[in-house]
């Protein structure tokens, strides 16, 4: 799939470690457009849209952050907690605003399975449909996260 020069520049930023250690694309050799397109198809198959999924993620993060690092029950089978660090992260797409360094972990109390996301993940999914590349430390698998929290 052909990308615009702007997307080429963006991909260079995403592959570098300018903003986060290890970059956003991990070991994934696909182009950004291919990654976004394939993840969008997977999300469609799961019957959920990016904004809807990001909204659910934010709802869980908001509930957990009120516990200041403690655990909160977000449904019969899910509990969640957040960890925060000082400073802000910058979205690799060219627009204004910093995003707090906040990590949310959700655990299924029945299976012990966990999923972790950052506030930047929520923004990237909501605004750019981007779940990060395979092998990236904060990559989210669309089907898995929908199954877990929706």
């Amino acid at each position, binding site marked *: 799939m052909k990308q615009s*020069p702007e997307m080429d520049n963006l991909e260079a930023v995403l*592959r*570098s*470690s*300018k*903003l*986060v*250690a*290890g*970059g956003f694309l991990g070991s994934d050799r696909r182009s950004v457009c291919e990654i976004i397109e394939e993840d969008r198809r997977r999300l469609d198959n799961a019957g959920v849209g990016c904004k809807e999924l990001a909204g659910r993620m934010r709802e869980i993060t908001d509930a957990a*952050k*009120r*516990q*200041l*690092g*403690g*655990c909160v029950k977000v449904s019969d089978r899910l509990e969640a*907690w*957040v*960890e*925060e*660090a*000082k*400073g*802000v992260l*910058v979205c690799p797409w060219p*627009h*204004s*605003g*910093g995003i*707090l*360094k*906040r*990590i949310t972990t959700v655990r299924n109390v029945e299976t012990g399975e966990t999923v*972790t996301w*950052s506030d930047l993940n929520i923004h990237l999914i909501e605004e750019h449909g981007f779940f990060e590349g395979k092998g990236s*430390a*904060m990559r989210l698998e669309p089907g898995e996260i929908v199954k877990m929290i929706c």
Partner: protein
Amino acid sequence: MPVLVVSSIATFLTVLLVVAERYLVNYGECSIDINDGDKELKVQGGDSLLSSLTGEKIFIPSACGGRGTCGYCKVTVLEGGGPLLPTETPFLTRKEIAEDMRLSCQVKIRQDMRIAIPQELLAVKEYACRCSEIVDLTHDIKLFRFELVEPDAIDFVAGQYVQLFTPVYFRGGEEVYRAYSIASDVSEKGMLELIIRLVPCGICTTYCFEHLKAGDEVLLNGPYGEFCLSETDAPMIFVAGASGMAPIRSILCDMRNTQNRRKATYYFGANKVNELFMLDEMRQFEEKLADFKFVPVAASPGKDEQWDGEVGLVTEVVERGLKNASECEAYLCGSPGMIEACRKLLVKMGMGEDKIYFDSFE
């Protein structure tokens, strides 16, 4: 196909301009007047304001190494900065733009300039250090001790922070600086201690936790910040979580050294008991300070953890324990969420906003 040709030409011309500016354009020597004559520098034009100031050992806080991604390196450019660039506007408020604030990493020196920076930044120095010890405090928090080599002593005020330089430690990495509060005693001028919590995917904390070893050389610069004790006699509460312990520990050491007799209560919160640390050292301050109480708080102790201390969110324990909020000052250090929750609570309890001090590093 035409789009490809136009894009290629545009890219070629851009590269040509950058190369020409870098190697062919000579701006000559330019002067930078700082704070209306407090200091005047003579620098070679063509570099960014940030790198030129750094070259002259004037350190402006910057987390991204001058790549225009953190927005921290703001200075007031009164003359000679040229027009505001699109790369700066996302990081500046309307008020800051009206006040001639600029990102010093984006401003090129092409002519004489007049700038204003906070006076205390002129006292900031770079310190070559050796990491002498790394101590595990919890599963994701460590104490790092650095012996100062050159210069071999530092003056700072308890509560201030330094910036730790992170070298490139993996392919495609970038040099960055990150801010950490000083945890050590002001009177021990030949060393600095930092308490650092691992941030998942954090460039600097990953370096500290996985690459930095005792004996390694590191660079720090500082001190920075205005988070320090007021000069009143008002009773105080300290509220901290996790690595927020650092500046409070330094302040308590200073209170001990100066025989400060102010009444103080320190609420130190964590989720589990095994995430609380330095408990014995903090309890010793109860004996060494005139009127000090230490209150460690565990939000939800594990079933296998023995704990007879306070249980609940640190804000809940503060609400239960603090009886005279309107007469007190508060010093907060921890996650942005904890700081915001405490700030709201204390205001609700009658404390003036101007009596609540915190260093959010945002």
